[in-house]
């Protein structure tokens, strides 16, 4: 039995033990959805970090930096600065006014089943997209690192485990899985960074010296062959400390800015992050959670430089991939694991692989619980049952069934989409969150005149515009060379030039919300603003 497999098993046994312990403390809705509000700010800070630092951060950014140098670091910066939006504008008022879900806050003033349904639909869309991306990642990763486990087996394994955590252990088990994963991830990242620096005699300048020796090249359009572009001009060469290797050409800078918009605003609209603030007892504890999360997330993302540059210099991008039919197929996700192997041999490779596995599991569990509460609390209890009589047992049962159905759907979709390039789904989740959820959240908290008309048009336009633009973008449309490892969903030239639609879809969401508000004649929302405003700022009446 390989060491990786052994480490996976240890993680599984420990987390299942926690799930058993948590299952005895999970009976009511408050316990299932929000761990009985028993988590401290410090613990929740680790859990928020655990929920947020997905495989895309750990493996994805390390890989982007290893392949494209500086440009990969742009993700790291945006992913931390985004927490200022959460800290300053969203976390505390959300904790003070909501109970279990994102829709609680959106439906607070506008007590309309339509608002709640749209908010729940948006939650489900964002979470499902994100989940599929994580699970396809899990499938290829686990089957790469532990060849004994096949792609489909890996997805089913991840899916079943996440369902066990969520269905039996509710939010309490999910929270502790996040915390353990965050501790493992931080430990692994610190260790890797120290080992990378040790190779350069602990001189950061020495590392940069080596990084500047690594270079890449690009053309205005298309890829260079042997240093020449298709039009006969020489390709532009940049070293890895310089920007431009990923974002260049006519649309490069705008793509970079659009990505920034999605990251900075999207985080404050990710339902699986927002529901974490209901697990703490007060707005002050919510604030403390964000502070700890920012310390952890910031330190982690600064260290991605060492992982990425370490992999670029010590492993070399030409060596990062899998041997298939005697040729090396490049695979960015393997940058961090191969760096670990280079620095600490098989044992360290196993450790880092186990961390990647734990990372994916924890994130999908968080997504599952956020979507099951959106279904049970928002759609089932508030819309179908019209909030008649809160039958706790029934609602928890519905939430558990919803988790099973959503999890099953994610497993099936992940298996069906295995050969497609689904990395765009994470970008899509962020774009939908930024364009549909964030305008609605900010306007209901800070604009007295905001009403049902504005909420519904804003969310629908934000949701549709981000989905449509991404379908027309190079993330989904593209012509692949025959035999490419992953294929674009639509084999045609893209109609929208940017990878990420946020620069257009976020303003569209805001404008639609504004226009909808001004054109809608219903009253009532303005009066309810007094209650929301006082509650959000003082915590009076908070649960």
């Amino acid at each position, binding site marked *: 039995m390989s060491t990786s497999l052994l480490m996976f098993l240890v993680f599984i046994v420990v987390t299942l033990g926690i799930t058993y312990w948590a299952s005895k403390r999970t009976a009511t809705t408050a316990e299932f959805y929000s761990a009985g509000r028993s988590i401290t700010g410090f613990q929740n800070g680790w859990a928020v970090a655990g929920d947020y630092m997905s495989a895309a951060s750990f493996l994805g950014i390390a890989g982007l930096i290893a392949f494209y140098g*500086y440009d990969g670091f742009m993700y*790291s910066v945006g992913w931390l600065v985004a927490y200022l939006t959460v800290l300053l*504008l969203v976390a505390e008022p959300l904790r003070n006014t909501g109970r279990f879900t994102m829709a609680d806050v959106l439906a607070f003033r506008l007590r309309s089943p339509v608002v709640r349904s749209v908010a729940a639909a948006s939650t489900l869309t964002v979470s499902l997209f994100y989940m599929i991306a994580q699970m396809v990642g899990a499938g290829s990763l686990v089957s790469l690192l532990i060849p004994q486990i096949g792609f489909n087996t890996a997805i089913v394994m991840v899916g079943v485990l996440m369902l066990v955590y969520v269905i039996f252990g509710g939010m309490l088990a999910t929270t502790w899985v996040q915390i353990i994963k965050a501790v493992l991830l931080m430990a692994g990242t610190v260790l890797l960074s120290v080992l990378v620096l040790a190779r350069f005699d602990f001189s*950061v300048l020495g590392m940069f010296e080596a990084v500047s020796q690594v270079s890449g090249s690009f053309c205005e359009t298309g890829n260079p062959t042997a240093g020449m572009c298709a039009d006969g001009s020489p390709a532009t060469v940049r070293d890895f400390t310089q920007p431009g290797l990923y974002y260049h050409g006519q649309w*490069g800078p705008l793509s970079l800015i659009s990505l920034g918009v999605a990251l900075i605003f999207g985080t404050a609209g990710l339902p699986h992050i927002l529901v974490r603030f209901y697990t703490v*007892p007060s707005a002050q504890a919510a604030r403390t959670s964000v502070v700890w999360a920012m310390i952890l997330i*910031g330190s982690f993302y*600064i260290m991605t430089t060492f992982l990425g540059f370490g992999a670029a210099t010590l492993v070399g991008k030409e060596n990062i991939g899998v041997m298939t039919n005697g040729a090396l197929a490049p695979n960015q996700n393997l940058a961090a694991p191969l760096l670990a192997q280079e620095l600490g041999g098989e044992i360290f490779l196993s450790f880092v692989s186990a961390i990647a596995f734990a990372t994916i599991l924890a994130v999908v569990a968080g997504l599952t619980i956020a979507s099951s509460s959106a279904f049970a609390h928002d759609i089932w209890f508030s819309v179908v049952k019209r909030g008649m009589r809160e039958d706790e047992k029934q609602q928890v049962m519905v939430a558990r069934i919803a988790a099973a159905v959503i999890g099953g759907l994610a497993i099936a979709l992940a298996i069906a989409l295995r050969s497609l390039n689904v990395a765009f789904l994470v970008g899509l989740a962020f774009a939908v969150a930024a364009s549909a959820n964030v305008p609605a959240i900010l306007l209901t908290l800070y604009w007295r005149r905001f009403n049902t008309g504005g909420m519904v048009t804003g969310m629908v336009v934000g949701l549709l515009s981000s989905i449509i633009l991404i379908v027309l973008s190079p993330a989904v449309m593209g012509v692949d060379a025959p035999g490419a490892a992953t294929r674009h969903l639509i084999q045609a030239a893209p109609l929208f030039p940017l990878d990420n639609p946020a620069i257009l879809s976020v303003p569209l969401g805001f404008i639609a919300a504004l226009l909808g508000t001004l054109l809608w004649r219903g009253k009532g929302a303005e009066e309810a603003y007094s209650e929301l*405003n006082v509650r959000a700022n003082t915590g009076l009446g908070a649960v």
Partner: protein
Amino acid sequence: MTHPSSANQPGAHPPPAPDWEAIESGGEFRELVNAKRSFIFPATAFFIVYYFALPILVGYFPELMSRDVVGEVNIAYLFALSQFIMAWVIMVMYVRRARTFDGMVDQLISRTRGGQR
């Protein structure tokens, strides 16, 4: 420390709903909201401008940003790193301010409760 949940003690009758409009139009509440917004809104505007300066400069002026400052460490990397420092500094500033806000909330709540009795 405020304990907002203490308003709903288990077993007790639910207290009468506070008069939200009266609280909202009261001087203390207006002072609290003004104090909060006069920090939060400028801070938000600042971090948005500071953050977007990075992709704009890096995207449109890569040569300028590639100039080395110390050894092979260039402006682009140092500016990206400064974003982390900026985020943490605003975080610390906010947490210190928020202690004042908490004090204002405590006073407001105790006065509201007192008025109801």
